[in-house]
């Protein structure tokens, strides 16, 4: 014997050790088609992954199988993750699977892009066809599931932000195979009802598969065809759906859709307050201006009033009277002064005054001639001499005519 024969167990262990030595086999993704899936009573799953030339035995233990939300059908293309190991008892290497998911992911992306390109080419997303949202929606149609957290979130936003609105829910499923026709029906119901100003098509976050109904061509066409503007708020900020592109406005989240579709009452209250203030201010100014104008007119009226002219005339008369009186007294004064001067002159001219100073008036007794020359009185002529007090009868003794 050139070499010792392996026992079956030893050879199997050797093979197992070889496989075990390759780290790439401890963390491996395999793509294939599921067949012969057996979900055992123990909770373990047994199945085979195949492609057209090979097959791989697979097992998924109960702990992993219980976490699977996706349960493959026979023939499903799947991606499986796990490690390769040897089942010594059965002499089989197999994939100990910890995760199974539909292999359609890449496929979904391709379908998403294909539908997007097709609808875009049709002009379904054209910016020109986007309608503006009403500034103050009175009725807000909401297409979503009544039990969705997103519906509550949206109501909370509206309560805080714009409680003036009324919400009309058009209920639908937002997940699953029957969701697309039901979403289309819910949109259609609101359009037939008609009396809403804007429609919010909303759904909270989820996996790509959960949100897939919003990438349905029927939904996209119904959104684009809605006579009422549609705001689409599906998933989170990073989730883009075909319905987003078809909508008039894309909102990053359901709550954001409610915000985009409504004004904020806090701002409106401020606006109303501001307008009220401006109203009062402009009125005060108008009234003040009115008063100013009235006062100016009153002044002008006073100036132009006939009463004013009468008053003015009266004043002129008064002025004239004063001036007249003034000039009259002046005249009187002048006259009085002249009179006094005359009187003084008269007094000065009074012969008696002269006589009082010692002069005398001499008259011829015969004819009363007042003598001013000695020539008129020959010696012996009788003369009357008038003194300041009393008279003298005298005769001329002699005369000197020189």
């Amino acid at each position, binding site marked *: 014997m050139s070499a010792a024969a392996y026992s079956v167990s030893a050879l199997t262990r050797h093979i197992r050790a070889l496989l075990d030595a390759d780290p790439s086999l401890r963390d491996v993704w395999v793509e294939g088609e599921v067949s012969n899936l057996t979900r055992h009573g123990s909770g373990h799953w047994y199945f085979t992954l195949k492609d057209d030339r090979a097959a791989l035995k697979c097992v998924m233990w109960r702990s992993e199988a219980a976490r699977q939300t996706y349960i493959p059908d026979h023939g499903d293309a799947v991606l499986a993750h796990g490690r390769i190991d040897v089942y010594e008892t059965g002499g089989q290497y197999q994939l100990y699977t910890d995760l199974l998911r539909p292999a359609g992911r890449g496929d979904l992306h391709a379908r998403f892009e294909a539908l997007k390109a097709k609808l875009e080419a049709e002009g379904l997303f054209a910016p020109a066809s986007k309608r503006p949202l009403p500034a103050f929606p009175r009725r807000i149609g909401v297409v979503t599931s009544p039990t969705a957290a997103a519906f509550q979130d949206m*109501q909370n936003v*509206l309560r805080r932000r714009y409680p003036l609105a009324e919400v*009309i829910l058009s*209920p639908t499923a937002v997940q699953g195979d029957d969701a697309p026709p039901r979403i289309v029906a819910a949109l259609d119901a609101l359009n037939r009802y008609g009396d809403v100003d804007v429609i919010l098509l909303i759904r909270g976050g989820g996996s790509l598969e959960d949100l897939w109904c919003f990438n349905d061509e029927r939904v996209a066409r119904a959104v684009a065809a809605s006579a009422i503007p549609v705001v689409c708020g599906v998933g989170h900020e990073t989730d883009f759906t075909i319905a987003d592109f078809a909508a008039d406005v894309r909102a990053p989240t359901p709550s954001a859709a409610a915000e985009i579709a409504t004004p904020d*009452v806090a701002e*409106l*209250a401020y606006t*109303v307050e501001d307008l009220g203030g401006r*109203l009062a201010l402009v009125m005060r100014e108008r009234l003040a201006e009115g008063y100013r104008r009235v006062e100016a007119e009153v002044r002008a009226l006073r100036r132009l009033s006939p009463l004013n002219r009468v008053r003015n005339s009266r004043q002129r008369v008064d002025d004239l009277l004063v001036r007249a009186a003034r000039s009259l007294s002046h005249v009187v004064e002048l006259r009085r002064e002249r009179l006094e001067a005359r009187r003084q002159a008269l007094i000065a001219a009074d012969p008696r005054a002269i006589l009082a100073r010692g002069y005398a008036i001499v008259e011829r007794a015969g004819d009363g001639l007042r003598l001013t020359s000695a020539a008129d009185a020959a010696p012996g002529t009788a003369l009357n001499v008038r003194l300041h007090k009393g008279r003298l009868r005298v005769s001329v003794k002699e005369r000197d005519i020189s």
Partner: protein
Amino acid sequence: MTASLPDDLTFEAALAELENIVGRLENGDLTLDESVALFEQGQRLATFCQSRLDAAELRVRQLVPDSGGGMRIEPME
């Protein structure tokens, strides 16, 4: 000039009319009588808008298909 506010006045219409009135008053060019009348209408509108904002409470109803193939709206909860 309306002496009071129409029964079916919406918040939106009231706010738009209030803005219009303030604008007209601020532009001047009105008789004092017109100004006073506009001011009074503006005050009514401002009060209306404020009361609407103060009193607003979100109403939520839902569309329900009825047996005749049509629809009716019902309050929720």
